[in-house]
């Protein structure tokens, strides 16, 4: 008479809290998730194939469209990867400016994460508080390169132009007002009982699993592994910067929240150092108008806000376009951990897990 039936439910691809067109196939026993299968590919545009048919200069534009909330990080990875392929040394001033913008973009990305993650869990106000500061950052990007999201901020060999007049002043103004803002978010969430109830011990992923699944970024650092590419394989001007890698041992959603907030403070520190120590000089290396590569193969990882963003280039002899371009997208690899994090837990925890992984579908599907 009674039969025990599992409900199969599709979370997405159109759903308020899957952060894009992620589809998660859930098997539910009541509210308990027995099986969780992420299904991706709804935003696949074939960026890798397109970039094989674009020159090294043109291809960067496509990287904006991958992780569209952290496009400057993507630009940095592309530019540095190509520079590594050709052996170009970038002027020091350009490195500093790149570092500063990338860190500002990390702030913007983390703010967007905080906003949406809190909204997913039901805390609505943090969303707008975080967007308030993010607007300021986007205005800075617009002042620098004319675009708020799809920035294409850097050029191969350096920067197209130096900082616009007044940029440093505005950036400093943001620096001055930003730290109290983080305190404001913390006031709303860090000691909030419901927030803690919803996040402490939820979606745990310990260090061994993280490493086995290739999970990087704040998720790995919240599992107690101090692995940050900015320190491990310093790129841009990170070697000259003084900052710490925040880690937490708990490996749960709350720890990731704390790690990301601490990272925001560290990014703030790095930006301050960039502003204060900005060297004079040119911003562009001397490179030919047309880049023709030799047979070469490079993999260049950088620390994107979501984790390790790697660009793999294969250059052809005399080729102006990459023979092969592959993106190691952090969200793509991190999302594999979703099943492990959520199976056996409740439906609401799936939402928290998707939020805490901080996935961007543009990057996963490419």
């Amino acid at each position, binding site marked *: 008479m009674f039969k025990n039936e599992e409900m199969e*439910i599709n979370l997405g691809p159109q759903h*308020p*809290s899957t952060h894009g067109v992620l589809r998660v196939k859930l098997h539910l026993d009541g*509210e308990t998730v027995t099986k969780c299968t992420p299904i991706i590919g709804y935003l696949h545009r074939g960026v890798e194939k397109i970039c094989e048919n674009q020159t090294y200069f043109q291809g960067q534009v496509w990287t904006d469209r991958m992780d569209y909330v952290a496009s400057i990080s993507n630009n940095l990875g592309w530019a540095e990867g190509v520079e590594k392929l050709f052996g170009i040394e970038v002027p020091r001033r350009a490195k500093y400016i790149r570092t500063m913008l990338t860190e500002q973009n990390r702030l913007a990305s983390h703010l967007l994460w905080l906003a949406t993650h*809190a909204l997913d869990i039901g*805390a609505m106000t943090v969303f707008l508080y975080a967007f308030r500061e993010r607007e300021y950052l986007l205005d800075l990007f617009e002042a620098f390169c004319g675009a708020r999201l799809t920035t294409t901020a850097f050029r191969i060999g350096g920067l197209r132009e130096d900082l616009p007049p007044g940029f440093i002043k505005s950036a400093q103004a943001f620096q001055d007002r930003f730290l109290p803002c983080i305190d404001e978010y913390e006031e709303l969430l860090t000691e909030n009982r419901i*927030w803690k109830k*919803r996040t402490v011990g939820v979606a745990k992923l310990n260090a061994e699993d993280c490493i086995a699944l290739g999970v990087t970024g704040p998720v790995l650092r919240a599992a107690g592994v101090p692995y940050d590419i900015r320190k491990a394989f310093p790129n841009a001007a990170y070697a000259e910067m003084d900052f710490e890698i925040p880690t937490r041992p708990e490996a749960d959603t709350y720890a990731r929240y704390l790690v990301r907030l601490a990272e925001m403070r560290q990014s703030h520190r790095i930006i301050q150092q960039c502003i204060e120590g900005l060297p004079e000089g040119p911003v562009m290396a001397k490179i030919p108008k047309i880049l023709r590569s030799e047979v070469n193969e490079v993999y260049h990882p950088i620390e994107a806000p979501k984790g390790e963003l790697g660009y793999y280039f294969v250059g052809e002899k005399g080729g102006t376009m990459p023979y092969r371009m592959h993106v190691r997208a952090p969200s793509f690899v991190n999302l594999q951990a979703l099943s492990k994090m959520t199976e056996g837990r409740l439906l609401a925890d799936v939402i928290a897990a998707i939020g805490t992984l901080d996935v961007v579908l543009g990057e996963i599907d490419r």
Partner: protein
Amino acid sequence: MPTMNLTQTMVMGLIQVVAVLILIFVMVPLLTFAERKVIGYIQVRLGATRTAGGHVGITGALNRGMWAMGKVPMLSILRGLPVFVADILKLILKEDIIPAKAERSVFTLAPIISVLAAFGVFSAIAFYPGALFTFPARFPIVGGLPFMGFISDVNVGVLYILALSSVGVYGIVLGAWASNSKYPLLGGLRSAAQIISYEVPLTLSLLTPVLLAGSLNFKDLSVRLSTGADMHWLAIFPLFVGFFVYTTCGFAETNRTPFDLPEAETELVAGFHTEYSGMKFGFFYLAEYTNMIVVSCFASAFFLGGYYLLPFGLQRFIPASVPFLGQPSILFFFLKVFTILFAFLWVRATVPRYRYDQLMDVGWKYLLPLTLVNLFAAALIRFAF
């Protein structure tokens, strides 16, 4: 009160009912507007401003003048006020979709049950214990009759209200089931579990004032509690605890943050009303906001002193001879109602949402024992002192 014949009774009843309905239909849209504005201001934004009488007419000229001077118009708090009219128009004019595989009759019935249960409660709520005014004698039929602050003076009003407000959940559950869709079903299950769980501490917490005052009649209860007649001063403590438990359960009963699981939009898309649109959705919406008003009326009447100024029976320190502050007034009642409604909005903008199992924990593990202890304390105070 002069005795009334049948016609007079019926006409008076009709007038009272229409008056209360008008009250509801004015308060609910205003509440939605207030929600936009209050949450907007908490979240460092302006809330609804677009649908504004801000571009034409006198206010429009003022607004444009202020914008021209580079200032945000001071009238901006009222900008967007017409949005509630727009809201209602939108709901009425929208296409009313019934999914092909839905159970048509139940699907239609569900919002009606919800909204009727919510409205029916008002028949026993007293906004004022006595007559608000008397109709002048020149009026036909009702001339010389008092206009009371309540529709009917039911002896077991509290019981009636509790019974009727429990019916509301049927609307939600039936609507969820009739949608024949997965997200609404989950929302309906959550709703059923949640409302049944919270019904218990809610009722028990209402028993505290009932026990202390010894009445089930809405206005008698309220008046006795506020004036503190034959109540020991210690009764303030169980009343205080009861107030918090009642408000908490009230949040849960009305599906408001942090207990908005049945319609948790980031989890269940829109919960039980995912498949609803147009005026059917509007009915659910209306029921939810009406329930908020009901909960506020209850908390106001039983715990916050009702028609008197001071809450928790502290009114005894103001003698009845004091002209305005010592007398009952409908203003005090609505002041408290609006305060609690504001708290509803404030909480929504502040806290995250509970998870399903935690919600059950809060209900059964904390609130229920607390109310039982509280009830025992109330009984002790009532009979020992």
